[in-house]
């Protein structure tokens, strides 16, 4: 992976998108490797603080998915 690849911080809901990501893995689908997943118990717990904290620590983009 080259230096220029963006880092995408993703907050995935345990029950929805995390499951989808798991299924995608099990089904051997291919998706970009730029995504760094944080599993959260529920997207309802998301706070603007988390997004800012991510950007502050140098994430190129943030993706929240429920």
């Amino acid at each position, binding site marked *: 992976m080259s230096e220029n690849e963006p880092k995408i911080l993703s907050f995935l809901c345990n029950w929805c998108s995390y499951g989808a990501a798991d299924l995608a893995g099990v089904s051997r689908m291919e998706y970009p490797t730029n995504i760094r997943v944080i599993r959260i118990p529920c997207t309802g717990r998301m706070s603007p603080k988390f997004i800012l904290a991510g950007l*502050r620590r140098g994430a190129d983009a943030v993706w929240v998915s429920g």
Partner: protein
Amino acid sequence: MNSYTDKIKEISKRLLKEDKVDMVVGYRKGSVPLMHQPYIAQNEAEVDAFVWDSSCGLNLANYITDRTERIGILATGCNSRNIAVHLVEGKIKREQLYIIGIPCKAMVDRHKLAAMADGDITSVEEDEEKGTITIKGENFSETVNKADVLQENCSLCMHRNPVIYDELAAEEVPEQSTDEIDPYARVKEIEAMDPDEKWNHFDDLLSDCIRCYACRNACPLCYCPLCFVDESNPQWVGKSMDATDVRTFHFLRAYHCAGRCTDCGACVRACPVGINVRDFTKKLEKDCLELFGWEAGLSAEQRPPLDTYSPKDPEDFIK
């Protein structure tokens, strides 16, 4: 607006005498011109310190958070809306309050006047009939039209008369209408910029910030027992003057006010370096109006949009 002063004193004295309230929250002359201090009168003698003119810009709703006493409080349009926000959020009970409604004739902008003055302003006189303000200092004296030196939020205000009150101190004043002025002109100006221009605009805006948190302390909405800026584990925002930290603070502070801010302008007035913090909050206010048809503090019963769910909530930002 000095004619209000006597009426305010009269009502306050009556309330204290009849033992309807334990205290009345109002303003007294501040230690510096153009900044009247919030003042809590607990007996009739203390009421005599009360004043009312165009320098009563701080928000009194800030002083009733979590109080247990019976309180009489002066309330202009924006103050009364903040009281309504407090009621909705359970920070005070309606039975505890006796709201003295004050139809507001707008406040003057101390930063604008200070910029006009040739030195320190030592005294201020207001001529109610002519609508002029005279500022005096050691070597100068200047008279200006009050209309030219209003706080920006006051000149754009759509709710000058209090929305909830027990008694009015004067006749209601005429409201401005959106036909004459566009309250969101400045927001639209910023919206029209491209991302880099916006970024630089806010960089310039915040470059003077000294992180004194006066805007937070003046704000009636900021009543968290522990503010996010003081949290150390995890630490959301650094305590330095670093541009990123300053921006994080202002962003989160504004966001905490989403759907609650009444644009009272206390933050701008309190700011010692004259930053127009409202560039953030006004945008949120506009969004709330456009997305949810919501204006903060107009009702003491309805829950604000950000703590209710409706299937009609806009969701086009979700993929």
